């Protein structure tokens, strides 16, 4: 239990310092609102249009394909960890798995899901 006291102290201290910094600035700092200041910050580039504007649906297709192929990586992780114990059997199984993924990839390709225009 005792070892947590230090952590509790640290958290308390961090809270005090953070609140103090914000509070002091709030109390003593000058406050001048202007139109430029109220603008959303976009890495130094002047913002144009709404932040929540619509995206072309094309992005959605790419995103969905990305999710599908990305998530399949979860099966590579356990395979990579047990690679040595599994030996040739594991390798063949993984090749099979990738071939099945490839079927989906070729399908998406041939259907034109990867074309941008």
């Amino acid at each position, binding site marked *: 239990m005792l070892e947590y006291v230090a952590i509790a102290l640290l958290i308390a201290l961090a809270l005090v310092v953070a609140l103090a910094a914000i509070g002091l600035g709030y109390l003593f700092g000058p406050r001048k609102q202007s139109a430029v200041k109220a603008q959303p910050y976009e890495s130094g580039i002047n913002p144009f249009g709404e932040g929540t504007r619509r995206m072309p649906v094309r992005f959605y297709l790419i995103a969905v394909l990305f999710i599908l192929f990305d998530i399949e990586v979860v099966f590579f992780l356990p395979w990579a960890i047990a690679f040595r*114990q599994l030996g040739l*059997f594991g390798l063949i199984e993984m090749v099979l798995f990738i071939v099945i993924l490839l*079927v989906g990839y070729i*399908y998406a390709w*041939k259907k034109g899901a990867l074309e941008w225009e």
Partner: protein
Amino acid sequence: MNLTSQDYQVLAPYILLTAWACVLLLVDLFIPKERKSVTALLAALGLAVTLGVTLSQVGIEQVGFFNMAALDGFSTFVNALLLVSGILGIALAHGYVKRMGIERGEYYTLLLFSVSGMMLMAQATDLIIVFIALELLSIPLYVLAAFARPQLSSEEAGMKYFLLGAFATGFVVYGTALVFGATGTTSLAGIVAAAASPSTSTLLLTIGAALVLVGFGFKVAAVPFHMWTPDVYQGAPTAVTAFMASGAKIAGFAALLRVFATAFPALAVDMTAVLWALAALTMIVGNVIAISQTDIKRMLAYSSIAHAGYILMAFVPYGNPAVRDVSIAAGLFYLVAYAFTNFGAWGVVIALEKKEEKGLAIADYAGLGRKHPLLAAAMTVFMLSLVGLPPTLGLVGKVYLFRAVIAGGFTGLAIIGVLTSLISAYYYLRVVVTMYMKEGEPETVRETWLSLTTALTAIVTVVFSLLPQSLFEWASTAVLKLF
């Protein structure tokens, strides 16, 4: 750590069908748009070959893939039925999708994937595999339900099916998690062993089993988890509905059967009461609401809910070893009867359906008896079978079911079954009356495969009812070694 040829033999039909579907997905890319019949033919061929492999495995009893899948009489029986359903589904769909302008090769590939998921479901002896199979059969069905896009009703049907199906999946997964926590294993055999030991938490196990039951209740459309059924069945393309109504039900009940009968016999005391209530509610609600329907697709949807109730009756005595076998065999027999009748009835609906969802009101069937006597006769057979009147498979199925349920000591449930069947006679026979007694000029389409399917299912429905013994014996031997 290696797989032997025995492992591959266990899942041979499933592997064959999945590989075929993958290849077909690619082959279809090179088939020109106006020749998609080739894809349909190839898909049907794949199902037929798989059916051959399945039938060649009759009598083999094996487990494989580290006890995660089993090949036994039960799986062979169910798989054969599923493959026949798949073939009938393609035969119904082939002309329909062309006529409705939604012919795409993916239809057949998705159907194959769905059938392969259903087959895996019947063979699964591990909750992980049950889950994967459940998703493999469901996800293609969500897409198929929305296949008539951009038609809004079909898209909405797909959306509703998807949301409710995913909701059900959530219950199955959480239930599986709790069962896993209670027993420390996901294998059905391991669960039975763990349930027997006193250190296992019965509370956790019961809650887990109940959640799994809720999930499957959604899948097979049991009341009170049936809300999606009428909308989805109505909105989905009719050929998809026909396949969904039989295939998903067969697979759902197969999994329910395997999971509950083999893994949770220890919970029979609690579960029997729950299943009793589910079965009774499903029969009553399905049949009563069906009365007021004027759309044939919605009526058949409620009829499908009601039949889920009848099949659920077979599960009620599952904790009683004396009648368990005969009761589950009766359930399997009823599934066969329902599958054939169902495909036939939907086939007639497809024959009368026109573009833009016309020709789907029951009133549109007026005059069919005079204009197309054969089609009307077939529809009469299917309606009689759904009520459970002679000379049809539906009657035999109900007799076996009620007999088993009474033998199990649930006379009250059997009485509810008989009474609701009487109610159902009203709305099924109304279709027959409309066909023969009312005047009208119904238009039908003539398609070779559609007519063949309707004729075949009508003949099966009548002929097998005259010699049901062999089919029932097959079902009984299928169940025999399940426990």
